[in-house]
C-alpha cells in the first residue's frame, strides 16, 4: 500500500446507506426505515467535520456505521484508502485502535463496577500496548491530560459528576492513541458551564495530537464552536455542506436557513425575522418523494419539481447544496 498523500482525505464516505427492516407481527415486511439514504463526505487529517441535524436525521447512524457498531446496507467508507466495511477480524482490531468513539452519555458508557483506571487501560490491554506498570503510568498521564487528578484511577464512575465522567470517556478514547475520534453528542448532556470546559478540552487535544473529529451534534452553536466544515442532514441525506463559516453565515438550503434561524441565541440584539417551520419532520419509513424537505419548505419558488424530482448535492458559491432553487436565497 502506498502512503497516503496529504491531498487524500483521511476518511472518505461514499454513498452510505443504512436501512432498517422490520417485520410486523404477521410476518409481513414493513417498509424499511431509511435512516441513512446515500451519504457522502470526506474528512481531512486534523480536521473537524460537524454532522448536524435533528433527531431521526440519521447522523448517529452514520457514526455508528463508520465504526462498525452497525453494518451498512451499502456504500463504502475508506480510512486512508482502505475500505472499513470489508476488514477481517485482525484488520478490524487494528482499525479500532486508529478510530475511537466518544458517546453522549458518560453514565451509560462506563462500567459502574470497573475502576476508572481499569476502564481507561482496557483498550491498551486489548491492543497489548505496554506492560502493566507502563499502562498504569500512562493512565495517570491521560487523567492529567484531560484535567483530572491522577489519583482518580482507583475510584469508581459513580463518584464523579457528568463533566468528569465525560473527561474519563475522553481519556479512555485517547488511551490507544487514535487518529480519528467520532464524537456523538459529546456535550449535550452537560450543564453549560461544564460543556464549555469539555469543548475547550477537545479543541486543545486536537491541536496537541493532530486528531481528526467527526463531531455529531444537534446544537448548531456547539458545532460552530469546533467544526471547520459542516454537513447538515435531513431525513437520512446531506442537504448542505461546506466551510462552517459559509454554511452558517449564509445558508443556502431552506432547511439550513430554518435550523439556523431557530437557534435560540443568548443575545438580545434583534435578529432578522425568525423562521418557524410548520409541522414535524416526516418519518424516515415514509420519506416524501422528490425533495424530502418539500412538505415543510417555505422557499418562494418551490413547485411541482420539488415534489417529484430529488435534488442532488451540487456546488454553489463555494458550498454544496441539494436544492433546485438554491440560487435564490429563501
Amino acid at each position, binding site marked *: 500500500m502506498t502512503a497516503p498523500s496529504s491531498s487524500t482525505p483521511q476518511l472518505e464516505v461514499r454513498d452510505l446507506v443504512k436501512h432498517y427492516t422490520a417485520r410486523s407481527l404477521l410476518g409481513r415486511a414493513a417498509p424499511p426505515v431509511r435512516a441513512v439514504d446515500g451519504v457522502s463526505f470526506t474528512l481531512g487529517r486534523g480536521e473537524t467535520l460537524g454532522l448536524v441535524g435533528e433527531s431521526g436525521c440519521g447522523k448517529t447512524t452514520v457514526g455508528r456505521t463508520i465504526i462498525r457498531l452497525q453494518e451498512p446496507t451499502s456504500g463504502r467508507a475508506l480510512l486512508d484508502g482502505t475500505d472499513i466495511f470489508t476488514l477481517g477480524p485482525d484488520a478490524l482490531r487494528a482499525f479500532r485502535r486508529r478510530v475511537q468513539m466518544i458517546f453522549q452519555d458518560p453514565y451509560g458508557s462506563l462500567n459502574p463496577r470497573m475502576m476508572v483506571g481499569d476502564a481507561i487501560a482496557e483498550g491498551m490491554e486489548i491492543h497489548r500496548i505496554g506492560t502493566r506498570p507502563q499502562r498504569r503510568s500512562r493512565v495517570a498521564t491521560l487523567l492529567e491530560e484531560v484535567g483530572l487528578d491522577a489519583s482518580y484511577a482507583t475510584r469508581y464512575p459513580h463518584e464523579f459528576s457528568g463533566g468528569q465522567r465525560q473527561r474519563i470517556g475522553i481519556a479512555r478514547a485517547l488511551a490507544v492513541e487514535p487518529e480519528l475520534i467520532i464524537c456523538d453528542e459529546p456535550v449535550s448532556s452537560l450543564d453549560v458551564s461544564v460543556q464549555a470546559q469539555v469543548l475547550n478540552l477537545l479543541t486543545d487535544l486536537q491541536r496537541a495530537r493532530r486528531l481528526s473529529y467527526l463531531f455529531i451534534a444537534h446544537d448548531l452553536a456547539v458545532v460552530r464552536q469546533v467544526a471547520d466544515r459542516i454537513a447538515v442532514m435531513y431525513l437520512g441525506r446531506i442537504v448542505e455542506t461546506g466551510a462552517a*463559516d459559509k454554511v452558517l453565515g449564509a445558508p443556502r438550503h431552506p432547511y439550513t436557513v430554518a435550523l439556523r434561524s431557530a437557534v*435560540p441565541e443568548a443575545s438580545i440584539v434583534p435578529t432578522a425575522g425568525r423562521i418557524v417551520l410548520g409541522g414535524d419532520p416526516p418519518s424516515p419509513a415514509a420519506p416524501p418523494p422528490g425533495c424530502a424537505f418539500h412538505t415543510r419548505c417555505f422557499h418562494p419558488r418551490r413547485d411541482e419539481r420539488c415534489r417529484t424530482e430529488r435534488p442532488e448535492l451540487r456546488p454553489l458559491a463555494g458550498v454544496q447544496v441539494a436544492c433546485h432553487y438554491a440560487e435564490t436565497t429563501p
Partner: protein
Amino acid sequence: MTSLLEVRDLRVSFPVGGGRTIHPVDGVSFTLERGRTLALVGESGCGKSLTGLALLRLVPSPGRVEASSVIRLDGKDLLSFNEEEMREVRGGRIGMVFQDPMTSLNPVLAIGDQIGEAVRAHRKVSRGEALSRAESLLSEVGIADPSRRLREYPHQLSGGMRQRVMIAIALAAEPEILIADEPTTALDVTVQAQILELLDRLRSQHGMAVLLITHDLGVVAGRADDMCVMYAGQVVEHASTRQVFEAPAHPYTRGLFGSVPTITGPRERLTPIAGSVPPPTAWPTGCRFAPRCPERFDRCDTMPPLRRAAPGHESRCWLTGDEP
C-alpha cells in the same frame, strides 16, 4: 397594587440523615405580574425546578416548605390553604407544563379524555361539552385536525405534539399563571421554536403570567421580561432580561455567558467557569459561588446579600454596587 404572585424567602428543607438538613431552595424571593414572563435560569441542582414545585406545594416527601416562607397568590397566603383549596389552585389558577410530556400523559387514555378530564376537574360541564372544549383547546395550541387527534393516544403523537397537548391540558381551566419547567428541552430546535412562539401568543392573548424555568439563556433572551439567575439554591442576580444581558453583574452570570457558544459574531475560545456545581451538602458558608469565582477575595467568606447594581437590578456579590 397586589402582585399576582409574591414569593418571599422561600426555603425548602430536606433531611439528609444524621439529624442534618439541607436547603436546596434557600431564601428565594420574586414577584410575578399579570401578562409578564419571569424566567428562573440556572444549571442542574440550582433549585429552579423545586421552586416551581414548591409554589404548587408539590415538594416531594420528605422535603417540606419551611413555615417562614411566604407565597401569596393575589395577596392570599398559599401556605395556609387546605388540600381542597390547593386542588383548586393546581391546574386551576396555576397550570403547569413539564419537560417530558411522555411521562406526564397517561399512555392508555385517549388525548380527548385527558384534556376533557382537566376541563371537568374545574368546571361543571357534561362529558360532551368537555370534549368539544378539548377540541377547541387542541386547535388553539395549533394541532391540525383536532377532532381526529382527540381519539388518538400519546404514543401516536410526535414529541412536539405531545407538548402541545400538555399545554392544552394546562390551559383547560384558564389559569392565571403558567409554570413552564424546561418546556422545550426535550424537543428538536425547529419544534422548540414553535412551542416558544405558542407560549408567547397564549400569554399575550390570555394575559396569563408565565414562570419560565430553564437552563438555556437563549430561550430566555427572546421571551422573558425579567429573570432570576439561580445558583446553589439562591437567586444570585435579579433584573429585567435586558439589564442582565447588557450588563451581567454577578460573576456566575458572566461565567454562564462566557460558556455559551454563539451562532453569530466572531468564533472565540469559550471562557468556562472552573470546577462544577457542588452538591447541597458541600455548600460553603460564605458566598456559594466563591470556590469557583475568579474574583473572590477575603470578604467572600461571609454570605453577601442581594445588593443593588442599578435601579431594579440586584446581584448577590460583594463587588456589586458601591454600598459598604
